[in-house]
């Protein structure tokens, strides 16, 4: 024993270890478990209100961890009002008696009423909060964010569908846009100053499995924002690919899923989708509707300046497979696996893609929204000429209207 104490005295690090254990280790044992300190927020909604000094109503879909033998998730929607998002969150913490933990936040829902003002003011707290991962999904709702979360609560509790999953594959499909906090800010702070947010709509329906009662567990809706008020009956949350487009933080327009398809073909930002040709006729088909599945695509931009005007060529190489034929004469009997696209079909597809692309460009031109970020591409390849071109314009933001676009389509049958 004497030898042991001698050894301890000789080893300062051991003494330090003992001191640390006594002063830091034992008090830690007496502290409340972290699981009891935090309310874990999985989705957050923001509504705009005007109630005295309060400007925001922040709602949370919280998961309150309860230690028990079985696996059960208890979700609750709580709301709080404040002069800022940060203040509303503090009040929500008070109401719950727990600290608001945002590390597991997966979704931020914004009531479309917020879009009348600069949206960045509602998001500032969230982008600066280090707990929140920037891959959190950002969505817009057509009703109050609080009611949306109540519908989401039912969805999360009663089915295995998480509301954040509804927009998880937006980057893959041609009909929708990626809308995470990161992607929104990245494009909004970029040279085009355009940001995209996916729109999730809530529809009243009956008899659908993935449905939710508008009345949450807590009963009354606050009625904040558009579409507020108590609504009863089942509601379904739908992702139709609708996308809200913002410029300089302000809502510019809402694009439908079909419009997004036109834009995404120009951007080349999708991995799956289909292309329809209606009422097609040739030697093989008679007034058929043909649907082609897109397998791969390779899109490249080229730019040259002609008389000081940029001419952008979009070279799209696209792999397609005939996946559906609606033939009025019955079943199309040819084996699709060995079906070879005829020249006429290729021409029809090319014409269709060119039409889709030109419609997409028109949408961008009409609204002065450079969703494909042509600005960066032209600037990086022809900086000087592009600057001169912009200087000559009456309105620099309207550069898309003065750019000449050409498209080359190369179709490969898979």
């Amino acid at each position, binding site marked *: 024993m004497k030898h042991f104490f001698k050894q301890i005295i000789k080893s300062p690090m051991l003494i330090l270890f003992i001191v640390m254990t006594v002063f830091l280790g034992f008090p830690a044992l007496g502290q409340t478990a972290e699981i009891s300190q935090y309310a874990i927020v999985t989705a957050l909604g923001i509504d705009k209100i005007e109630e005295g000094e309060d400007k925001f109503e922040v709602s949370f879909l919280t998961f309150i961890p309860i230690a028990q033998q079985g696996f059960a998730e208890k979700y609750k929607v709580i709301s709080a009002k404040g002069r800022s998002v940060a203040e509303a969150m503090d009040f929500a913490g008070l109401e719950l008696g727990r600290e608001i933990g945002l590390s597991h936040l997966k979704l931020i829902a914004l009531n479309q009423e917020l879009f009348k003002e600069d949206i960045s003011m509602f998001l500032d707290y969230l982008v600066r909060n280090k707990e929140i991962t920037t*891959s959190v999904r950002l969505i817009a709702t057509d009703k109050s964010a609080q009611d949306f979360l109540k519908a989401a609560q039912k969805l999360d509790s009663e089915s295995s569908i998480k509301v954040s999953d509804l927009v998880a594959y937006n980057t893959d499909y041609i009909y929708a846009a990626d809308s995470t906090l990161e992607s929104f800010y990245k494009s909004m702070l970029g040279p085009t100053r355009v940001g995209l947010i996916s729109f999730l709509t809530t529809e009243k329906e009956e008899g659908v499995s993935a449905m939710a009662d508008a009345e949450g567990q807590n009963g009354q809706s606050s009625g904040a924002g558009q579409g507020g008020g108590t609504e009863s009956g089942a509601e379904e949350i739908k992702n139709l690919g609708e996308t809200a487009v913002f410029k300089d933080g302000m809502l510019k327009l809402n694009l439908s899923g079909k419009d997004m398809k036109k834009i995404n073909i120009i951007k080349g930002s999708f991995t799956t989708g289909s292309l329809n040709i209606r009422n097609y006729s040739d030697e093989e088909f008679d007034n058929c509707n043909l649907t082609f599945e897109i397998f791969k695509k390779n899109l490249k931009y080229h730019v040259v300046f002609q008389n000081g005007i940029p001419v952008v060529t979009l070279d799209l190489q696209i792999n397609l497979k005939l996946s559906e034929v609606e033939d009025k004469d019955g079943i199309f009997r040819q084996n699709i696996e060995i079906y070879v696209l005829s020249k006429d079909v290729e021409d029809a597809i090319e014409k269709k893609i060119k039409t889709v692309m030109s419609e997409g460009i028109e949408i961008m031109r009409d609204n002065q929204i450079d969703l494909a970020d042509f600005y960066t591409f032209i600037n990086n390849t022809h*900086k000087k000429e592009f600057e001169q071109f912009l200087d000559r314009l009456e309105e620099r933001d309207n550069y898309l209207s003065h750019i000449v676009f050409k498209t080359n389509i190369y179709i490969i049958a898979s």
Partner: protein
Amino acid sequence: MKVSDRTITAGQAGIILFILLFANKVLVFPSLIFEGADFEAFLIPILSSILEMGLLYLFYKLKNRFPDQTFVQILRQHFGKAVQIVFYVAFSIYFLSKAVLLYNVTFIFFRNMIYKDAQNLVFLFALLPIINHLAICGLRVLGRTAQLFFPVILSIVVFCIIVGCFGIDSAPLLFQTSAAKFFTTFFRHFAPFGDTVFLFLIIDKVKVEKGQWKILFSCAGGALFLVCLVSFIFILSYSFTSFMHPFAIFEIMSFVKEYEGLGRLDLISMILIILFTYFQLAIYLKMFMFSFDGVFEKIDQVYGVISFNVLFLIIINFLIVNLEQAVMYGQHILPFFNVLPFAVLPIFVLVMFARRKKEKKT
């Protein structure tokens, strides 16, 4: 208590150099340079690395001319005791200042990321005893410990970089910065560089056999290349949103959060930051001890340790408030301190070489 500092091999010196050159540049540095110089910011670490390698070359020349002399002896022999003391006082301040900045940035990083309620005292409890122990045990122990951890450190660095490459998803906007903006940013963020100067203080303790210089140059070159790579990946990954992502090596790993199945792999980069912080602070303390010894030759180096701890605690007490203040200190005060390794020291060494050449001729 006498601190015994035995010699270290070229390999150990190379590893210490690697840790020093890489460690303090991969947290806030890439984000700050992008803020100042846009996409062209990736050239700043390249330019700074060239200067750092120049300093290493200067050390190579000096070591070849004076293989067994201490830096104190070299300075005293050529410029007298007064100049030597001034130099060593400057070195003490230099290493102490760098340690303070490093501690501040790391503390703020951990407080923001995981230990929200942690007090400064708890951090000091975890850091100070170990760095003191490492420094007091001697240079060789420090070198060997670094050697032991080096494979882990290198593996994590490479892993972070590979994962970071998957997060690159934006086309940067080129040619947006002006020369004035670029060079102002370059100067403001020059503070993390200049660590090679520690080799001058241990010039007699680094045993470099014939043909071993390539180890030192490879370690330094490798570390600086990785710094440039991390900065480049970070800028390409986040570009316009870099203000939301101040901690580069951690942020480039966060791409995996997109795919929730993989979990929080970014925690791996935290292990790296913890290891780097321990080693780097220990090396700074060790260098402070050498500088202290150069000024007060008659007293034990342990007084150097005590002085470092006292001064360190006083200064961080003023700077610990927030990241902004720490960054301000790093941007507006510390860059001027780099005059020592990149201007004053080279001038004196070159004068020394010129004098020696003249003496030989006569």
